[in-house]
């Protein structure tokens, strides 16, 4: 484990897994940011956040301060919505943030509400996170009790109310416009942009949506300063970042690191290398929606620019590491099932394309595919870059792109293995034992499992 020369601020005690309740947060100087923000003009708060270079942690990496300044002047009410839907496969950093640092999130919500002149904020938490919702509700209750939330925040005369809202199982509700339709009480269907939510969002009112980690960053930026935040910089990526590293590393987990870290350092220094001394096969660097990286790209800097230069996206900073026991065709079939299931069905290219790709993938993985199937698949999915194939760039929201990119990328990187499936008439990966429990493989007699159907 490398010795870190920086101070962790988001989740310094993640292993302990304890919730920092109000009393403890206050002992650590909590709600200092709220106090500072109450003394600042709204534009000043926005300016500090702009100056820090903070970019959204939910996936798209849009500069937070700039988004806040898009609100139309003089139009009220305005709403803040915290995106805690966290459903991009591989991503699981907002959950520990909410469960361990609920008051830091509330502190950030108050500061942001003051900055954007909103009096009502929603935290939209995915339905599966029962515990996060319970903890956030208790923390919100504590904050009301202490006069931090309500009609008169710390006697300032300013109003900030917070509603904790649970989703009910739909990946698409993480997409910002879908999240708002869901919050309004409808099916979570995305809407065409523009208008952007900042102009016309929840109930048609100006609405700012930010990821949990983005909002949690705000109190640190206010108390420690924009310069501190910028002391961790790679190109236009500033600040520390929470990476969710899963798959076949020895020590999967959520790692708080500067975005100057390389993929090699992340996997081999922080995460203890690949399990069982296996070889690395490929890496999905930013949540399941992004193109894949190969072992010869280990020197990629894990910033937004670094990953983009390597041909992919940092996305939600969810790094999935796959070893040589994983068949890439099988893996992309697994993801194909995900996108097919999660497409909301509004746009024909996404709805039909995701299902079509998954059907072809299943056929290929099960050894019944043809060489023609490969060409058809490539024509639908494209080559793993934006606006190629039949889906990407042709749908209302980015789920369409997200469904196509991994397939296009897998085909491009592992074409030979796809062809091998066709030639052999079966998946060449046989008798691999995947379930490691208590440090050893379980069920020695394990046979290669066919990919799950729909």
């Amino acid at each position, binding site marked *: 484990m490398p010795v870190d020369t920086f101070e962790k601020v988001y989740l310094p005690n993640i292993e302990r897994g304890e919730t920092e309740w109000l009393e403890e947060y206050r002992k650590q100087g909590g709600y200092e940011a709220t106090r500072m923000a109450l003394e600042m003009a709204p534009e000043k708060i926005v300016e500090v956040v702009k100056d820090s270079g903070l970019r959204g942690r939910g996936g798209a990496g849009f500069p937070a301060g700039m988004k806040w300044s898009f609100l139309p002047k003089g139009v009220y009410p305005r709403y803040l919505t915290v995106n805690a839907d966290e459903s991009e496969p591989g991503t699981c950093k907002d959950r520990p943030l909410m469960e361990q640092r609920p008051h830091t999130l509330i502190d950030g919500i108050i500061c942001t509400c003051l900055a954007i002149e909103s009096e009502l904020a929603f935290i939209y938490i995915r339905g599966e996170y029962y515990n996060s919702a319970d903890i956030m509700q208790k923390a919100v209750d504590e904050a009301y009790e202490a006069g931090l939330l309500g009609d008169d925040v710390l006697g300032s005369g300013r109003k900030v109310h917070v509603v904790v809202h649970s989703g009910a199982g739909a990946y698409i509700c993480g997409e910002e416009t879908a999240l708002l339709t869901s919050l309004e009480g*409808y099916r979570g269907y995305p809407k065409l942009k523009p208008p952007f939510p900042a102009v016309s969002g929840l109930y048609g009112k100006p609405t700012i949506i930010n990821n949990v980690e983005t909002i949690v960053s705000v109190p640190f930026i206010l108390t420690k300063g924009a310069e501190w935040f910028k002391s961790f910089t790679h190109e236009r990526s500033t600040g520390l970042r929470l990476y969710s590293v899963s798959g076949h590393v020895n020590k999967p987990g959520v790692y708080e690191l500067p975005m100057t870290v390389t993929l090699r350092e992340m996997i081999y220094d922080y995460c203890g290398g690949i399990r069982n001394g296996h070889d690395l096969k490929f890496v999905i660097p930013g949540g399941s929606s992004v193109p894949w990286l190969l072992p010869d790209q280990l020197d990629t800097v894990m910033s937004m620019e670094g990953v983009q230069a390597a041909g992919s996206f940092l996305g939600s900073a969810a790094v999935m590491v796959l070893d040589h026991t994983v068949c890439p065709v099988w893996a992309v079939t697994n993801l194909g099932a995900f996108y097919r299931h999660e497409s909301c069905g509004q746009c024909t290219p996404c709805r039909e394309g995701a299902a079509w790709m998954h059907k072809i993938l299943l056929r290929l993985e099960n050894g019944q595919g043809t060489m023609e199937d490969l060409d058809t698949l490539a024509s639908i999915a494209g080559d793993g870059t934006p606006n190629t194939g039949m889906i990407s760039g042709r749908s209302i929201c980015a789920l369409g792109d997200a469904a196509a990119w991994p397939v296009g990328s897998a085909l491009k990187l592992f074409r030979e293995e796809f062809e091998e499936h066709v030639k052999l008439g079966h998946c060449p990966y046989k008798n691999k034992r995947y379930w490691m429990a208590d440090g050893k493989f379980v069920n020695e007699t394990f046979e290669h499992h066919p990919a799950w159907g729909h």
Partner: protein
Amino acid sequence: MPSERLRTLPILGDRIGEIEQICAKYPERRSAILPVLWIAQKQEGWISEDAMKEVAEVVGVTAAEVYEVVSFYTMFHQHPVGRHHIALCKTLSCAVCGAHEVSAYIREKYGFDAGKSISRDGRFSIEEVECIGACTEAPAMLVGEKLHGDLTPKSIDDVLGKLD
């Protein structure tokens, strides 16, 4: 003030006070559909047509609109489930860390007939679901509202064995 009639609803009646408080948090009442559906599901373990009608009445929309919402979200059960519902993650990070084996293990050991989602004794129901956000603790499952990660045969038995 909730009308007296709402208090007499067979499924939601005894939770009307709480429901009214929830509705009051939102600028528009319709936003309370999901939280009220969650309450309905807690009351009965699943969401029946009768429950949807009650939710419609409480929130002030039509039953068809409630059905539209229920059928969109995967966590709402439109059919009865076992006494303990298992949502086992099947997406990539869990799949490459043993989710298939966990599924096979639970289904065999806890009395599920092939292709069935409720165990023979009605004690458990199981659903292989998409990513539950526990990727760094793969393989993982939710049993009721509780998350269990880093599953091993022993830890599965420890959790499931204790439930009646």
